[in-house]
């Protein structure tokens, strides 16, 4: 067995490690480090090297510790990497713990006065007089604090050999149009860079070299991507109540709507947004708007989903289209509001009292946040029911590299809506009658100028003609048709994505933000001699492909980010005869999933 010192010497001495490492910047929340970290990440991205950025932040506005991690990976792996290679320890509160957590041979950039070299001798330290340099950057004390962040960008850029023109480009983009801010920040970067060049001797292996792997790619967070999906789906009514981590979905949507959805001829908005008084009202407004014919949506996180329960059942039972986003965070209760989770799955699937089942979409990437948002509106109107889009904090709030999004290929389809002409032609209208045999009835909108158009929407028992009923046969008829409609939906929800390996006995099932960690893990497993196939579920209810996948493999690992193995349970519930094949891999500490967690869990089980 190697000693730690030997290991670190080996790592430090093995020459260059190019485009394959992670940087963690530890700062204080509210210190303005977000822009610096974006500049650092973007400049590497612009050098053509795949990157991803994750912000690990507290539920706090200012003062508590926050960490930003940039993963640089030449092979394009963009999941979290658990191990930190380069630490920028700017936060005195956490510096000692941060540096203690490093593996031998890592790098630590820190303010000289913290004397972190005294704590770990098996780490390569670069100690920088940040206060002195900041004093040179500005006379203004408040600005000095902000510019310190850009100084570490300069130091890191010099150490890693990040091209200066790309830093300039990233700063120009970050502070678009603000010439003074651009100058100040560029100057601070230069101060750091020049000081590092003159005073630091490069004694670690990490470096970047230009590649061509990011040409034409975008960087975006999942909430912005979902907002774009809503924008291009033609959303017209948006109601929301602020809650972390979903707020930025509606906030970014509002920005896009103001920019692109003001009618050029009339100057009038083609949308309406309301910040509701709570989530009960938010979903109420979105259902009211859906009922009256708008493409409506609301967005929330776990606690909001709990509050929406009653109206979710109403929407299901009375058949009103709307789209509900749940950007999941750690629960139950307030939980950990700024940490990621996939634990709302079962409760949302059956949200509300009574026999209720909802269509749920599960995007696994930022591009799917966009595509499945578009699809959610189509499905909501096609099936006249609330459709839930479940993402999570990791997908929603972190920066992901992606191919650019595609313009929708299908025209907007508003579903089975009868206008006055159609009513005239039909000669009759029964709101809840299954005319076509697919369980999906026809609806009319208030304001339709025809004597047959009106009907009464009620959450109480209703007949096919939408009149009140307590008759057993009417209720059973209605519930059976709703079930039929739900089963029809199985053919129309997004199908799972299958990646089959020939002769693989091991199958892996995952969904949502686990995707990139699972992809990376499959490569690690392959290297360890375990061949695996992979099915990524993108929607509930399940489709036929899932059953086939479980049937075709000897052991199936269901990877998910919750304690109870909720997806595993839902699969077992639907196909109990296959349940013994299912193994559960559950990650639920609030941090994004990383490949090694999956790899180790599978290897442990496979070697039994």
């Amino acid at each position, binding site marked *: 067995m190697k000693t730690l010192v030997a290991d670190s010497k080996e790592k430090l001495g093995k020459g260059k490690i190019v485009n394959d490492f992670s940087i963690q910047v530890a700062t204080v929340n509210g210190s303005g480090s977000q822009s610096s970290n974006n500049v650092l990440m973007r400049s590497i991205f612009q050098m053509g090297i795949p990157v991803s950025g994750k912000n690990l932040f507290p539920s706090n506005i200012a003062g508590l510790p926050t960490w930003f991690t940039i993963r640089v990976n030449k092979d394009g792996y963009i999941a979290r990497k658990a191990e930190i290679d380069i630490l920028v320890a700017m936060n005195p509160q956490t510096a000692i713990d941060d540096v203690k957590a490093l593996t031998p041979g890592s790098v630590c950039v820190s303010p000289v006065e913290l004397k972190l070299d005294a704590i770990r001798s098996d780490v390569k330290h670069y100690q920088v007089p940040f206060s002195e340099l900041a004093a040179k950057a500005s006379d203004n004390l408040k600005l000095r604090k902000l510019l310190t962040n850009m100084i570490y960008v300069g130091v890191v850029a010099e150490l890693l050999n990040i091209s200066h023109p790309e830093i300039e480009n990233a700063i120009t983009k970050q502070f678009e149009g603000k010439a003074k801010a651009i100058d100040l920040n560029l100057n601070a970067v230069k101060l750091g860079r020049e000081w590092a060049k003159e005073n630091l001797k490069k004694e670690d292996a990490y470096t970047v070299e230009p590649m061509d792997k990011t040409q034409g790619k975008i960087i975006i967070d999942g909430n912005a991507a979902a907002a774009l999906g809503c924008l291009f789906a033609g959303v017209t009514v948006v109601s929301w109540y602020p809650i972390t981590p979903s707020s930025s979905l509606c906030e970014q949507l509002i920005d896009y709507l103001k920019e692109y959805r003001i*009618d050029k001829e009339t100057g009038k908005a083609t949308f309406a947004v309301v910040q509701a008084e709570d989530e*009960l009202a938010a979903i*109420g407004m979105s259902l009211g*708007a859906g009922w009256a014919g708008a493409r409506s949506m609301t967005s929330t996180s776990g606690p909001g989903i709990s509050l929406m329960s009653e109206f979710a059942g109403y929407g299901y039972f009375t058949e009103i289209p709307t789209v509900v986003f749940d950007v999941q965070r750690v629960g139950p209760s307030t939980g950990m509001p700024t940490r990621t989770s996939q634990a709302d799955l079962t409760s949302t699937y059956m949200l509300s009292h009574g026999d209720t089942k909802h269509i749920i979409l599960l995007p696994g990437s930022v591009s799917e946040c966009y595509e499945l948002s578009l699809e959610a509106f189509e499905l909501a109107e096609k099936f006249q029911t609330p459709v839930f889009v479940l993402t999570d904090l990791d997908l929603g709030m972190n920066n992901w590299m992606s191919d650019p999004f595609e313009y929708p290929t299908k025209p907007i389809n508003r579903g089975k809506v009868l206008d006055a002409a159609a009513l005239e032609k039909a000669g009759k209208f029964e709101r809840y009658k299954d005319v076509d045999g697919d369980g999906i009835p026809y609806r009319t909108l208030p*304001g339709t100028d025809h004597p047959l158009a009106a009907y009464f929407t009620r959450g109480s028992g209703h007949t096919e003609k939408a009149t009140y009923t307590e008759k057993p046969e009417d209720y059973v008829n209605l519930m059976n048709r709703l079930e039929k409609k739900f089963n029809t939906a199985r053919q129309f929800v997004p199908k799972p994505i299958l990646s089959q390996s020939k002769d693989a006995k091991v199958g892996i099932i995952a969904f949502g933000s686990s995707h990139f960690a699972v992809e990376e893990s499959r490569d690690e497993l392959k290297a360890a001699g375990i061949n695996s196939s992979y099915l990524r579920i993108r929607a509930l209810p399940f489709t036929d492909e899932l059953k086939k996948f479980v049937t075709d493999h000897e052991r199936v690992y269901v990877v998910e980010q919750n304690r109870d193995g909720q997806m595993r349970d839902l699969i077992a519930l639907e196909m109990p005869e296959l349940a013994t094949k299912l193994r559960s891999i559950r990650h639920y500490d609030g941090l994004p999933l990383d490949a090694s967690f999956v790899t180790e869990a599978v290897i442990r089980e496979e070697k039994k």
Partner: protein
Amino acid sequence: MTTSAPKTNRIGLTLADYKGSPSTLCDGCGHDAITSQIIKSFFELGLSPHQVAKLSGIGCSSKTPAYFLNQAHGFNAVHGRMPSIATGVSMANHNLTMIAVSGDGDTASIGLGQFCHLVRRNVPMIYIVENNGVYGLTKGQFSATADLGSKLKTGVLNELPPIDLCGLAIELGCGFVGRSFAGDPKQLTALIKAAASHKGTAVLDVISPCVTFNNHEGSTKSYKYAKEMETPLHELGYIPFFEQINVEYEPGSVQEVELHDGSKITLKKTEHDYDPTCAINAMKTIKQAHIDKQFLTGLLYIDEQKPDFTSLLRVGEAPLATLPEEKTRPSKEVLKEIMEALM
């Protein structure tokens, strides 16, 4: 015997065209009297039923939209949450005339929050509270509008003060606040019609006795009590914009208020000499009436200047609900522009 054709209104419809299904409420229920006045008012206003959306929450009062305007779309929401539904409907289609019926439990207890925010936003609609001080469907528990000291049939005394929905609405900036009584059809129809002409939320708190659970001695929401105690602040009249009526009044005896659509409300003064255009005066009058145990009815407050929710949304004439794809889906070039900015 000769039969004359039934009377028609300005759009050629008869009173029957404004009716709903038969009521399933108790005989003599105040709510049914209000339903009749809604039917009469909408008939006389000559509104197209299919351009109306009728909404309610849960409770006896909330059943009543089924009993009027069969040709209008109806929405029976969950308990206390009708205001959010109404807000959404209004956002989707602001051309609809919206009438909501709620109760004192639905509005002042479980739905108080949503009621407040609806009023604060000034969502254009008529909001009638059929106020009887008790829960009927669950058999007679007190609601939050029950007067201090009033008694349940079982003898239970209410020890909590009532929430005055009119006072609350004025506090929240409501531009049309009236209080009436199910047993005063003349005043009630004038208020309903004027409310329909108002651009914004119009709150009508109508005392509507519950004949089964709150019509006994000791109740302050019984027919007997309301009849004896009702004190109209003025004699109310309504002149629709489509009728050119000029009535001669003794100078200073009548106050006229012009409503948004050009209709007028006339307030013939009583000994109260009440001016409903002053919020401070209205609040004071409401407070004083509580102290004096008076049941004041009429138009408590009116402000025709306050912008309604629709105008704050800055939307066009056409309802958002039916905008065509070319208005709601930005072009391919827009997506390209957004993508390039993210590269």
